[in-house]
C-alpha cells in the first residue's frame, strides 16, 4: 500500500471514530412510572493522601527517568516508563492535574488573589522544571502522558526542515501568550480546555476533542510528537530550562567519533551536526544584520503590542462575563426568546445591569492591557528568533540540541560508542535493539 493509501486508511479510521459523541440529555419522564430518578450527588474530593501520592509518583518517575536517561542510557527503560506514565498520569488519573495544564493555574494564582494554588499543582508545575534544570527534558521523554501517547505512534517520521520547525514553533509561543493572558484575566484555562488527549484519558464523548486528539495522533505518525513540538506551552518553558541544564542527554557516552550514524536517528530533528567555520568575508555583513535585527526587535515588540491591543475585544469575547453581557443585551433587545441558564441566573441574582456593564468594561480593560503585553511578548519572541538564527554557535561533535532534545533515548542505539559502552565490544552495524 502506498504512503498515501495508508494515510487514507488512517483518516478513515479517525473519521469513523469521531462519531463517538457527547452524551445526550434525556428529559425526565412526564408520566409516573417505576423509573427511579437517580439522586444527584457531588463526588467527594480526592483524598489528600492520594494527591501526595501523585506528587511522590511524579518525583519518583522523574528521578527514574533521569537515571534511565543519563546513567543507564536505556531506551527500553525509558519506553517502559513512558507506558507507565501514560497509564498512571493519563488513564488512571484522567490526565488531571498534569504539569502542562498546571501552567494556567500558576498564572491564575499570580493574578487572582482569591485563588489559592494547591500545593499539588505547584509541585506538578515546578518538579519537571527543576528536573529539567538538572537533567534536561526527561519529563518530556518519559513522564508526560501527552508526550507518551504521541510517542507510540511515531511510525514513519519525516524530517521537518529546521527553518519550518523554527517557524511553526512561533505558533506555540502565540498559544503560550494566549494561555497566560486568558488565565491572567480569569477567562479560563485554555491549555486544559483544549487538551487534545483528555477525551482519550477520560473516555468521554466530546467529539471535537476526540477529533483533535485523533488528528494529532494521525499527524504524529509522520511528524513526530506534533503537540510537543509545535503547540505545548509548557514545553516552551522546559525548552528554556533545558538550555541551562547541568547535565544533558548525550548521544555518545564518551567521545564522538564523527561516524554520522546518528544523523537521522532523531525523529524530532534534535541532533545538531558539527558546524563548519564561518567565512571571514561574511562577518561584516553578519554584524550589520545583527544590529539591524536588534533594532527590529523593538519594532516587532511595538507592532505586536499594538496588534495585541487591537484584537483585545475579539479575545475578550471568550470571557464568561462578556458573553453574559452579550446574552443579556440580546435578551433585552428581545432577540433571545428563551434565556440561557446564565442569563436566567443573572436575572434572579438581583445584580444590576450597571454592575454587569462595569464588570464587562473591567474585563475589556484587562484584556486591553493584557493583549498589549501578550502582543509585545510574541513580537519579542519573533525578534529573538531572528537574532538567534543569525548568531553562529560552534560545535565540534554531533550533539543533542539542549532545548529541543526530548530525552527519548532513541539516538543511543545508533552510536557505536554506546554499543561498546553497553556491551564492552563493538557491533557490525549500528542497528537498534
Amino acid at each position, binding site marked *: 500500500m502506498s504512503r498515501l493509501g495508508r494515510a487514507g486508511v488512517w483518516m478513515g479510521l479517525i473519521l469513523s471514530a469521531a462519531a463517538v459523541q457527547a452524551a445526550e440529555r*434525556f428529559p425526565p419522564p412526564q408520566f*409516573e412510572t417505576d423509573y427511579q430518578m437517580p439522586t444527584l450527588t457531588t463526588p467527594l474530593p480526592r483524598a489528600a493522601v492520594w494527591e501526595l501520592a501523585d506528587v511522590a509518583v511524579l518525583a519518583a518517575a522523574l528521578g527514574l527517568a533521569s537515571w534511565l536517561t543519563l546513567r543507564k542510557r536505556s531506551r527500553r527503560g525509558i519506553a517502559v516508563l513512558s507506558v507507565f506514565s501514560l497509564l498512571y498520569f493519563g488513564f488512571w488519573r484522567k490526565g488531571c492535574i498534569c504539569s502542562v495544564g498546571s501552567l494556567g493555574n500558576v498564572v491564575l494564582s499570580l493574578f487572582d488573589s482569591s485563588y489559592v494554588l494547591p500545593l499539588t499543582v505547584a509541585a506538578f508545575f515546578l518538579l519537571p522544571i527543576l528536573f529539567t534544570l538538572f537533567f534536561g527534558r526527561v519529563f518530556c521523554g518519559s513522564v508526560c502522558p501527552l508526550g507518551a501517547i504521541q510517542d507510540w505512534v511515531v511510525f514513519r517520521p519525516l524530517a521537518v526542515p529546521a527553518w519550518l520547525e523554527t517557524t511553526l514553533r512561533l505558533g506555540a509561543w502565540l498559544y503560550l501568550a494566549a494561555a497566560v493572558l486568558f488565565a491572567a484575566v480569569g477567562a479560563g484555562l485554555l491549555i486544559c480546555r483544549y487538551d487534545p488527549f483528555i477525551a482519550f484519558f477520560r473516555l468521554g464523548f466530546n467529539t471535537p476533542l476526540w477529533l483533535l486528539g485523533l488528528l494529532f495522533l494521525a499527524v504524529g505518525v509522520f511528524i513526530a510528537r506534533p503537540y510537543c513540538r509545535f503547540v505545548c506551552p509548557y514545553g516552551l518553558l522546559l525548552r528554556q530550562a533545558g538550555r541551562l541544564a547541568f547535565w544533558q542527554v548525550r548521544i555518545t557516552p564518551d567521545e564522538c567519533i564523527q561516524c554520522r550514524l546518528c544523523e537521522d536517528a532523531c525523529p524530532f530533528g534534535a541532533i545538531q551536526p558539527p558546524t563548519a567555520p564561518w567565512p571571514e568575508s561574511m562577518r561584516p555583513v553578519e554584524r550589520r544584520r545583527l544590529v539591524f535585527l536588534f533594532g527590529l526587535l523593538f519594532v516587532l515588540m511595538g507592532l505586536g503590542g499594538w*496588534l495585541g491591543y487591537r484584537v483585545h475585544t475579539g479575545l475578550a469575547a471568550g470571557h464568561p462575563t462578556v458573553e453574559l453581557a452579550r446574552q443579556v443585551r440580546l435578551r433585552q433587545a428581545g432577540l433571545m426568546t428563551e434565556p440561557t441558564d446564565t442569563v436566567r441566573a443573572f436575572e434572579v441574582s438581583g445584580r444590576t445591569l450597571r454592575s454587569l456593564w462595569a464588570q464587562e468594561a473591567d474585563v475589556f480593560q484587562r484584556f486591553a492591557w493584557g493583549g498589549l503585553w501578550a502582543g509585545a511578548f510574541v513580537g519579542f519572541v519573533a525578534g529573538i528568533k531572528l537574532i538567534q538564527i543569525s548568531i553562529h554557535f560552534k560545535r565540534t561533535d554531533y550533539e543533542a540540541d539542549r532545548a529541543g532534545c526530548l530525552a527519548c533515548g532513541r539516538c543511543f542505539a*545508533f552510536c557505536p560508542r554506546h554499543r561498546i559502552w553497553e556491551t564492552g565490544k563493538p557491533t557490525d552495524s549500528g542497528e537498534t535493539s
Partner: protein
Amino acid sequence: MNNHDESKYLLPQNPQYQAAVSSLIVSAVFWAVTALLLVIQFYHLKVTDERRSRKLEALRHVYQAGGADESLAEEIRQLDVRYRRDHLARLQFLYRGSGLFVLFGAVFVGTVLWVRSFHQKPPHPEPLEDRTAAQIQAARRARWAVSAGTAVLASAALFWSFQGSQTPQESAGAEESSESRPAFASWEQMNQNWPVFRGPQGAGICRFDNIPTEWDGASGKNIRWKVPVELPGHNSPVVWENRIFLTGADAKRQEVYCFNAEDGTLLWTGQVPLAPADQREEMTIMEDTGYAASTAAVNGVFVAAIFADGQVACFDLNGRRQWVRSLGVPASAYGYASSLTVFENRLIIQLDQDYEPGRSKLIALDITTGQTLWERERPVPNSWTSPTVVDWNGQMQILTSGSPWLIAYDAADGRELWRLDCLGGDVAPTQIAAAGRIFAVYPYTYLAAVRPPQAASEQAQAELLWKAEGSIPDICSPVSDGRLVWTVDSEGVLECFDVQDGSRLYSQDLQAMFQASPVLVGDTLYLLSTKGRMILVRAARTFEQIGQNELPESFTASPAFAPGRIYLRGSRHLYCIENRQ
C-alpha cells in the same frame, strides 16, 4: 546482496514475523469493528432516539387533546420506559466502547511496532555536503521563514482586529438575531438613550440627572476618560446604554466605531466600503464638512451610518455588519451632512441633493435588511438638515427642513402629512418641536414658528405663527424648553425668543465661534464652542452665564449625554465627562 536484503526475503518464513503480521491484522479488524459499532450506536443515539422522542411527543399531544385516555397513557408509559432504557444502554455502550476503542488502538499500535521491528534499516548517512554553504543557506531560509511567519501572524491579527464582529460569539448572536425579528427597542427605551443626532426626537434636550457642570481638560478634572478617534468626522456621538457610536472617514476609508462607555475602550471598528471610484471623483467635499459629517443612528439592536459618498451601512451592536447600500454620491454643494434617524425598524435618510429641486428624496430602509420600505420625492434642492421623528398627539411624524419647505411625513408609511413654505437658502439647522409648535431656521434670515395642523387630513394646513429676525444661525440648530427658544449663530451670538410671539428677549455675544448645536440640561444651556469652551447659561428670560469649562482641542460635533455623563467628540479625541469624587 547483503545480509539485510537476505533477511528481507526470508521474512515470510519467519514464524515470529508471521505471528506479528497476524496479530496486526487481527487487532486492526477488532479496532475497525469497534469503531464501526461505535458509529452505529452513535447513529442510533442521534437519529433513532431523536425520532422516538418526536413520536413520544406526538403521542403526548394526542393524549392531551383527546382527554384522559388511560390506555393511551399506559402505552406512552411503556414506550417511555423502553426508549429511555435503550437510550441509556446506548450511552453505556458508547462509554465502554470508547474504552475498547482505545485499548484495541493500543494493541494495534503495539503490533505495528512489532512488525516494524522486522523491517528496520541500518543508518545510511548521505554523502557529506558542503557544511558552510548549507549553514548559510539554512540560516537564510530560517530568517525568511520566521519573517514570513511573523508577517502572517501580524496580518491575521490585523485582519481580525478589523473584523471585530467576526468572533464566533458574535456570529452566534447574529444567528439569534436573524431568527427573531422585529429588532428594535421601544419608543420609551429610545427616549432613555441618546440614539440619534441631538438625542431623543432630535430636540437637543437632556433629561438625565447628575450631568457635570465643571471639568477641566488641563488638569483632568472630571474627565473620566479620553480616547483617540482614528479617522476624522464632524458627526456627533450616539449612545445606547454602555456603547457609544461614532463614524470617521477620509478619502480612503470609512469606519464606524463602537466605544465602551465605561472606559472608552474601542470595542469594534466597522468598515464601510467606498462608493465606486468613478462616482467618488465627482464628489464635492468641503474641508469644513468632511467625509463623515452625518451622525449615525442606533435603535437598540442595530446601528446605521451614512457617509458623504452615499454609502449606508448597518451593524449589530457587536459590530457584525448586516448590510451595505449605495445610494449614489449625493450632489451637494458643501458635501452631504444630513444625519440619520430611526423609527422602529425604519432607517430614515433625508437625501436632499442637487441645486434645483427634482432629485431629492426621503427614504426609509428596513434597518434589518437594507431593503427600501418607501421613498418620497422632495421638492427641495440640497440641504444639510436632519430628519427628526416626533410624537405628535400620538401620531409619529417625520419632520424635515429644506428650501423652501418644512414638510411632515407619516413615520409609518412615508405619506406626506403637511407642508409649509417658510424656509430658504442653504438650510442646515435642524427643526425642533416644542410647545405644540415647530421651530425651523431660515439661515441668516429668521426663526420661524409653525403650528402643525391639528388633524391629519388633506385639507389640514400648517400655520406660520411668527418669524423672528436677528443673528439667525446658519449651522447650529435651535433649542427650546417650551417657554423660550434659543439660537446661537456661528459667530457666537446667543439669542432668546419667547415661543408665544417670537419677541427677542436678549441677544448676547458669547465671544466664541460655534458649530455644535446647544443642548438644554434641566435649566441650563450647554453651548460648546469650536475651541473647546463649554459655556453654561441659565435657561431664563435674561442672560446669565453660570459657568464655563475648557478642553484643549477643537469641537464641531454636538455633545451627547447619558445619565451622569457627557460625551464630547473633539477633532482628535472622544471625551467622557463625569462628576468624580
